[in-house]
């Protein structure tokens, strides 16, 4: 039951885009059509589900204070958490690289549809952000961190799909010239954020 709560919370209440502004750059740049947004959203979810549990293991067994006690009791006093940024990003970049090769080899159709999005994801803030939140919130198991990653990914997917659907309709509306393009997109994102804030008070 707790896992279900966590899932719903990470999809709606702690939505990556509307509550923390993570992955905003690609959210604004790629949300022009529903089809590409879908591809990017799936790629983000996929990478999140793979990287967050790996970083969780890294954090619990190597980086945290006293985490290396399982190697030998002498190492129990070492705290490597200051290295977490550099190791998390290195893991993310290499997993994205490996994923790209694996997907290209075994699922060419998926590879063709994800296309350029896969390599770009290494520098998507939502991915690193999820790993850092995982570290900050002290999840207790691989399961919890996987569910959190899945929820965040789906939340991101929902947000970018909604945005793309609205932007497709925007083509037919009259917008003041200085606001066209970027400006109106920001305003829409703000309004969608307000709508998502309705979930904020929910206690699960």
């Amino acid at each position: 039951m707790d896992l279900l709560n966590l899932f719903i919370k990470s999809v709606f209440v702690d939505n990556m885009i509307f509550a923390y502004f993570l992955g905003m750059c690609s959210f604004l740049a790629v949300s022009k059509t529903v089809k590409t947004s879908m591809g990017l959203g799936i790629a983000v979810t996929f990478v999140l589900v793979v990287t967050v549990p790996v970083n969780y293991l890294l954090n619990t067994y190597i980086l945290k204070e006293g985490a290396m006690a399982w190697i030998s009791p002498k190492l129990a006093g070492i705290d490597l958490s200051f290295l977490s940024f550099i190791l998390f990003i290195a893991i993310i970049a290499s997993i994205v690289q490996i994923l790209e090769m694996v997907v290209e080899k075994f699922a060419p159709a998926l590879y063709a549809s994800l296309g350029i999005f896969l390599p770009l994801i290494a520098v998507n803030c939502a991915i690193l952000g999820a790993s850092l939140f995982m570290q900050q919130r002290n999840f207790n198991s691989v399961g919890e961190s996987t569910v959190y990653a899945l929820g965040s990914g789906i939340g991101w997917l929902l947000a970018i799909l909604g945005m793309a659907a609205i932007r497709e309709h925007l083509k037919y509306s009259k917008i003041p010239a200085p606001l066209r393009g970027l400006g109106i997109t920001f305003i829409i994102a703000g309004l969608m954020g307000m709508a998502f804030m309705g979930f904020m008070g929910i206690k699960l």
Partner: protein
Amino acid sequence: MKFNKEVLFKPLNRANPVTVLVLGICSSLAVTAQLKPALVMGISVVIVTAFSNLIVSFLRNGIPNRIRIIVQLVVVAALVIIVEQVLKAFAYEMWKSLSVFLGLIITNCILMGCLEAYALGNKPFDSFLDGIGNGMGYAIVLFIVGFFRELLGSGSLFGIKVIPKALYDAGYANNGLMILPPMALIIVACIIWVQRSINKELQEK
């Protein structure tokens, strides 16, 4: 060594990384509910962009093209760790309130944008100026957003009350909505609106 003004000042307005190039929105807006964290975040980004540009520009002839992204990420991550540890040691409260967003400077697209587009092809000193310019362009937007959000949302600037009590007695109330995340986006939209009304060539069709 020639001082290239264009490189330093262009990112402040015409090629502003946030409002024109849409880079680096990710880690920025969540810290602008108050002015102080916005300022600290802005300064941190200026330092990281300037020095990562400098270092990558020194390394540019030695980095193999295929692994350049990982090399850049490592340089940036090392700099961010330095900034983070300094803040943690000397400004603990600030470090706490910025939380994960400091770490997210690593994936700030402004950095990758500067490194890929400028530092890899230009001399160290010019790249250093480009880094400062882009960092400042980002910091200015953060500062403006932080200014309005704190003034209208909490009636204070840098934590000091600036709206007189008489105004509250007359029925003025702080706008709680300004503190919440969505308003940051709408204020950025307003900045874009003003900027593009002045610089007509930036308008999209």
